[in-house]
């Protein structure tokens, strides 16, 4: 399934906040963000969490047991943000 408008916006935030050497369109919605796939590391995840907190008002905690699931792909991260962002 192609990226939604919300996923495209989040993909752009990922590219900008991490200074990725790729465009937002190149992030596959279902591809892994961490390690293999997009190749992000732990500093990237912390950086991205800060950018998400500032942009969406959603706090991502380093000790959240669901982090592997939340950060597993652009799609899962976007779903988490949309479920938890202040109405």
């Amino acid at each position, binding site marked *: 399934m192609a990226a939604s408008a919300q996923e495209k916006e989040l993909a752009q935030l990922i590219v900008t906040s*991490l*200074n*990725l*050497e790729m465009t937002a369109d190149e992030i596959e919605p279902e591809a892994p963000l961490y390690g293999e796939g997009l*190749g*992000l*590391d732990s*500093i*990237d995840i*912390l*950086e991205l969490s*800060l950018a998400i*907190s*500032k942009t969406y008002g959603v706090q991502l905690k380093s000790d959240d047991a669901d982090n592997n699931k939340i950060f597993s792909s652009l799609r899962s991260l976007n779903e988490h943000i949309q479920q938890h962002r202040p109405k």
Partner: protein
Amino acid sequence: MMRLYVEGIGLLGPGLDGWSASRDVLAGTTPYVAAPTSLRASDMLPAAERRRAGVPIKLALAVGQEAFLQAGRDTKTTSTVFTSSGGDNDNVHAINGILATAPREVSPTRFHNSVHNAAAGYWCIAAGTHEPSTSLCAYDASFAAGLLESATQVTVDDATVVLIAYDHPYPEPLNAVRPIAAAFGMALILTPRKTEKSLATIEVDIVSGNGQETAMRDAGLEALRSGVPAARGLPLLAALARGEAAQLCIAYLDDNHLDIRIAPC
């Protein structure tokens, strides 16, 4: 007196796009034309580090890489001495801005880059080295301190050392109180013994009292030398570019200076 040999040189500054491209300018046979420093992220770095690299990392790795290519030496077996008056001045400015504004959440990448030995860390990743590494700052005497430390390590430890000096301007308002004229870096690979790759001998003495600092003959290069702490080493590069014996004075801290004699090999 400490005697060492120069085996490789790296340079990157405004209108000085590499040692090879700048030799004639430094020798005075081609006019100096100022132009913005051509900064680029090093292809020595893995992708994650490359995209986090700020100006000082780009300067340090570019000049280090050029020096090692010239010397044909293995980066893995060479000790490093880094020296910079301020380190990552863009990063200092950005963190100050973040801390002055609620909610004062500092970017992990900015925090990671805020230590003075960040350039050394990136170099060790890029070069794949576990050799000793020293990172110094000594305000306007940062280059002299780096040369003195390198010469001491070459002499005492019988080690080959790469000296990497770099500085770049602060954004305003810090620029007004600590002006640094341009982004500039230079590297010297220094060995304890003469090799077939040796370019010149350098003898270094620390001397008490203020000496008459050696200036650059070209006004633009002299403005660079006097305006950037890391560029205080430019007269040394000019002597190497001319390929002539020379005696230089570079100011050190506390009213001391370095007396430097250079002779081509």
